[in-house]
């Protein structure tokens, strides 16, 4: 039993839903109680999808248990086929149905439906959403993909995009254009946009481009084995990675590397003097393994940040993330425990968090700016405008997104200079965020009654020291407070005066 407040990943059948909902002409019959239909709203509300996910839930009830839940499943399967006429069905159980052991796969197979029926075994009590998506896509490919003649021109499949993916919609466009510049066409994009018929002709591509290893690696490995199709290992997020990706692609095509950088602004923006203030900003990076590692590389090499912590919530990527953290010489955190992430951020006191929607909440509470780099997603992560993460435009988008929560360069100095001016109160936060952040920051800075943390610090701040502390810009104030308290605690002081504050400052000077 594990006590959980928030979860980074849903159960594995939600991963299967992401695959099914991304695809066309496929239907998912899920043996599950009525409450599990909440998952529909992830797609219709968060992603604003204009259609219901292609999922039939059997919605069995307590009174059905032990009598005819299996029959219920059969009827649901039959009705779903008759109504939706899909090219293929996937069938499986949610956590509750797994316990009643009706064997949806076995039942569906005996029904003699005129289309392929793909049974899914997704162990709900061991695995999670990304596994569910990866496994489902793998099973679909394994069942439907056939050896076929290669396309005359060099083409690839783009693998991994799903419904409810972080910027998948726009990454597909960006990478397709990038490949077109290299003379490489796209055979199939899957799971998102593909029908079962499209899956059948995956083998026509010359190799696979894996955009999201989290959801497509098993399928890519299988095709490598069965169809001798290599797949790409570099995920083109960031300037360096995009160049590496181009190199990787041309080693597979035998063509010449070419990348149109005329629209690429990140390198110059990062060089321009206003960005000086970004130097050595301490950042904490957390997300799915792929996005977190990509972000860490950009943070260090392309933004000049200092990565103080790196982590991911999907254990499947733990090894790669650990080794990267070793290279960066920073703390590593592999966990799906939200409270542990929060504790880690609190103790590292970074100046910027690059995380998920969950870290955004942590940042809000701790008063640390945060930019979102990875799923789990929120309705805000589906902007109307084109905003990929991959390729040239992705790099531009990333620069803007990461800098946005910070105070701009010159503004930072002005705030320090005029901090006593009441109309220029630094509590207001970055000027481009308007007044909302003022009240927000206030409520974040002091954890209210909701805080679970028992207060361990009984050191008293003298009024003068407290006043001096207020003069420190808000974005480092929290850290200064904590450092000073730790400093005082270590020296057995029960009071902090102005001298203690400045001694601590000197002690921690970097």
């Amino acid at each position, binding site marked *: *039993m*594990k*006590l*959980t*407040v*928030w*979860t980074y*990943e*849903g*159960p594995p*059948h*939600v991963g299967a839903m992401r695959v099914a909902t991304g695809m066309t002409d496929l239907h998912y019959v899920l043996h599950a*109680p*009525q*409450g*599990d*239909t*909440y*998952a*529909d*709203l*992830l797609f*219709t*509300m968060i992603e*604003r*999808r*204009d*259609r*219901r996910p292609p999922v*039939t*839930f*059997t*919605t*069995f*009830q*307590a009174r059905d*248990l032990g009598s005819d839940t299996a029959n219920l499943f059969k009827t*649901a399967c039959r*009705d779903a086929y008759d*109504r939706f006429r899909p090219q293929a069905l996937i069938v499986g159980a*949610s*956590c*509750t149905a797994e*316990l*009643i052991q009706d064997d949806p796969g076995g039942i569906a197979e005996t029904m003699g439906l005129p289309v392929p029926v793909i049974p899914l075994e997704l*162990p*709900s*009590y*061991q695995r*999670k959403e990304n596994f569910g998506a990866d496994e489902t896509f793998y099973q679909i490919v394994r069942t439907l993909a056939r050896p076929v003649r290669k396309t005359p021109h060099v083409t690839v499949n783009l693998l991994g995009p799903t419904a409810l993916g972080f910027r998948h919609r726009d990454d597909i466009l960006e990478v397709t254009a990038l490949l077109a510049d290299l003379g490489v066409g796209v055979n199939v994009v899957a799971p998102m946009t593909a029908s079962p018929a499209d899956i059948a002709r995956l083998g026509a591509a010359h190799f696979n481009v894996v955009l999201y290893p989290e959801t497509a690696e098993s399928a890519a490995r299988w095709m490598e084995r069965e169809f001798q199709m290599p797949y790409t290992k570099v995920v083109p997020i960031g300037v360096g990675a995009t160049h590496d990706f181009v190199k990787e692609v041309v080693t597979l095509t035998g063509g010449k590397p070419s990348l149109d950088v005329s629209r690429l602004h990140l390198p110059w923006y990062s060089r321009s003097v206003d960005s000086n203030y970004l130097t050595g900003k301490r950042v904490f990076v957390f997300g799915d393994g792929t996005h977190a590692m990509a972000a860490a590389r950009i943070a260090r090499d392309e933004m000049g940040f200092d990565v103080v912590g790196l982590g991911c919530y999907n254990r499947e990527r733990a090894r790669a993330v650990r080794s990267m953290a070793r290279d960066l010489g920073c703390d590593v955190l592999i966990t799906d425990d939200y409270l542990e992430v929060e504790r880690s951020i609190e103790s590292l006191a970074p100046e910027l968090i690059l995380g998920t929607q969950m870290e955004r*909440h942590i940042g*809000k*509470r701790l008063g640390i700016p945060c930019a979102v780099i990875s799923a789990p997603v*929120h309705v805000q992560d589906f902007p109307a405008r084109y905003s990929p993460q991959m390729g040239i435009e992705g790099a531009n988008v990333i620069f803007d997104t990461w800098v946005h929560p910070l105070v701009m360069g010159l503004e930072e100095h002005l705030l320090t200079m005029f901090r006593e001016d009441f109309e220029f109160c630094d509590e207001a936060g970055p000027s481009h965020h308007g007044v909302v952040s003022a009240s927000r920051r206030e409520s974040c800075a002091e954890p*209210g*009654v*909701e*805080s*679970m943390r*028992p207060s361990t610090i009984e050191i008293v701040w003298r009024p003068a020291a407290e006043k001096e502390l207020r003069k420190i810009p808000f974005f480092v104030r929290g850290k200064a407070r904590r450092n000073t308290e730790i400093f005082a605690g270590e020296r057995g002081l029960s009071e902090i005066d102005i001298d203690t504050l400045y001694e601590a400052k000197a002690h921690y000077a970097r």
Partner: protein
Amino acid sequence: MTAVACEPRPHGCRDVPVLKERGQHEVFCGLTGIIWLHRKMQDAFFLVVGSRTCAHLLQSAAGVMIFAEPRFATAILEETDLAGLADAQTELDRVVGELLERRPDIRQLFLVGSCPSEVIKLDLQRAAERLSDLYAPNVRILNFSGSGIETTFTQGEDACLASMVSVLPETRTRNLLLVGALPDVVEEQAVSLLSALGIGPIRVLPASRTTFESGVGENTLFALTQPFLGDTHAALERRKARHIPAPFPFGEEGTTAWLRAIADAFDIDDETFERVTRAPRTRACKAVAQAAEVLRNKSIFFFPDSQLEIPLARFVTRECGMRVAEVGTPFLHKGVVGPDMALIEGCPVFSEGQDVDRQLDRCRAARPDLVVCGLGLANPLEAEGFTTKWAIELVFTPIHFYEQAGDLAGLFSRPLRRFQSLNLMAAE
């Protein structure tokens, strides 16, 4: 009967046949109630014993409400718990211990059952009793089911309140108990109206803190503020409390009828009633009339969701002049919503339970001007050209009593006004 009336109303229909459906449901399970209950009961913590799905449901339903560490969590069952490698009861003791140590402010803890805990027959009642012995008198530990195999959406609140009824102290004092979790502002309005009528003492269930709880007994009269509290109703009757049946306090008419029923039970004279209610009634009529302008003669279709559907159908037909094509409800408890049913205009289709695809077919055939439905259906229906209202908003927004009557009508009229004001096609 009354001196203030919005306009003369014809009679409603009663005892129409109900269409019973048993297909795919598209509704939340009772765990969802935790989202509002944990805000209402400020010293309570809700511990769901369930799966990752349950945790994910809670956070998806909570949506943007994540700004503080919530007073709910999930004890996620793992492989070891299922394989019997770990004794689930011992594990539960450990988790509860961990939790209470972190939250010394908690005075009542609810162990909430889920589908997985019920399928493996994990006895939460036993656990609650054992743990109560351990943590009394500091923490009271109760249990109820919010599982999807037993409960639908708002039934979670019903199960929770019913579990509290059994531990309320016995009293012989004559009192009025208002039952149902309401936003504070609304609750205060109700209490002040009833106090002005000279009714008291008034207590509410759930109270914001255990220390404010009331006793219950044969001299207790209770009024439901929500139509989904069938089990709580039964539990209170078992404690000998007496129910005051009434239409639910939505809109001017509903609020007046609800207050009237309570006033009658407490022998309040007409003159007092008139004096206290006249001003807010007039205000409510006016506010509803304004918001209802665009609703008149429009048709509406309710998908089953919260069990508020029947009282709301009464409100929109009688006070807003709408026509109801179909009113779906997860359960139809005539003892509770009978008075509302009797008032509904125009005999719509009443359906209980759901077969979502067939219901969608009926909805498409009826082509209503407004569809009230869950979040999973709203955008897809909008994309088909329907105008929709999310049912969940009716649960989360203050809509009861006179001062909110206009807001309630506004919730229905806003989507229609928006539809009329957008001119997107011309831009294409």
